[in-house]
């Protein structure tokens, strides 16, 4: 882990990786979306609206995985003071918030034709909205403490505390009666027919690679920013 503590070594790996991950992810996601829109059958109950799944599920996964990443980076920041941890967490927040928002928006659009409502305050929908608000708060907090030149400790604590929402989102459909459906995909199998399911791994892996590429891009941007500010300070010039 500390092998990449040196930003120079991290950058030499991140630079080529960004392009590869980005393009591979974009191609996979595109293939998955095209397959999901044209090749798969409709659902017996929902009809064509089932195709929203190919966007909604990856977005939900990445919205949650993003905060999982922030929490992991927060532990690395709090315990090991890893120099890249705070940067990784800050870089993850904005794309994570975007995917959480995509999940909420696509879910809302899906809910209208199937359930008959854009929004209801059930356990799953509410906890996912809370995740989106947590992202917004995290972005504000991390930016504010970075601007002050203060430690990333407060943001790391917030990132860790906020992670408690992840199991709540996951188990909301088990603990409480919800309007949202139960879990379709588990470790042991899926209740989605294979002919409908198969493009979903493509879009999920594709968007995940794309997400990783965006994070690497943003980490490089934050590192470059820090370098620039340090140089300006050294030159004693304008802030």
């Amino acid at each position, binding site marked *: 882990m500390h092998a990449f503590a040196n930003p120079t070594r991290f950058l030499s790996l991140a630079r080529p990786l960004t392009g590869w991950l980005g393009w591979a992810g974009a191609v996979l996601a595109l293939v998955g979306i095209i397959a999901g829109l044209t090749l798969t059958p409709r659902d017996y109950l*929902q009809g064509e609206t089932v195709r929203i799944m190919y966007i909604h599920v990856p977005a939900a996964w990445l919205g949650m995985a993003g905060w999982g990443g922030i929490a992991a980076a927060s532990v690395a920041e709090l315990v090991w003071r890893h120099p890249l941890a705070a940067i990784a967490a800050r870089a993850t927040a904005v794309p994570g918030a975007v995917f959480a928002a995509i999940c909420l928006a696509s879910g809302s659009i899906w809910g209208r034709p199937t359930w008959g409502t854009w929004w209801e305050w059930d356990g799953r929908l509410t906890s996912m909205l809370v995740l989106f608000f947590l992202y917004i708060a995290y972005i504000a907090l991390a930016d504010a403490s970075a601007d002050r030149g203060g430690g990333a400790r407060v943001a790391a604590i917030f990132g860790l505390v906020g992670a408690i929402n992840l199991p709540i989102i996951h188990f909301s459909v088990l603990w409480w009666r919800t*309007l949202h459906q139960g879990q379709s995909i588990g470790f042991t199998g899926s209740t989605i027919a294979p002919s409908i399911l198969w493009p979903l791994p493509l879009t999920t892996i594709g968007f995940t690679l794309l997400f990783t590429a965006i994070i690497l891009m943003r980490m490089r941007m934050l590192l470059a920013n820090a370098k620039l500010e340090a140089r300006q300070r050294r030159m004693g010039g304008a802030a």
Partner: protein
Amino acid sequence: MKAKNQRLVLTLAALGALVAAALLAMSALRNQASFFYSPADALRDHVRPGQAIRLGGMVEKGSLVREPDGVTIDFRVTDGAASVAARYTGIVPDLFREGSGVVAEGRFVAPGTFVADTILAKHDEKYMPPQIAGSMHETKSLKP
């Protein structure tokens, strides 16, 4: 103990306390955070007539009847253990059909009789193409 290990132990302890607190809160919320009553719960809890609630379950097969006025429907909501007669006037979602999930917002007018203001359809986690679903899932819908 090295400072690094001390921080690790502290972080893990804090995390453990946090998870325990959240689990306690969630188990306390267990009954309050549900989105709807099942028919059995509503009957067991003696929900007062007139009190606005959501009632959810399956639309019982063979219970869906359209009244002569063309916009009012009668059906029964069941959770397997109990069943409640419901009435609704208006347009229902496309997915509303016999044997499928429903969440009705409204109130009991008498014990065991529910009048809904809003009907939401709830579908389960099973997705399949129409060919596979076939006659197994052929159910009566309100669509012509």
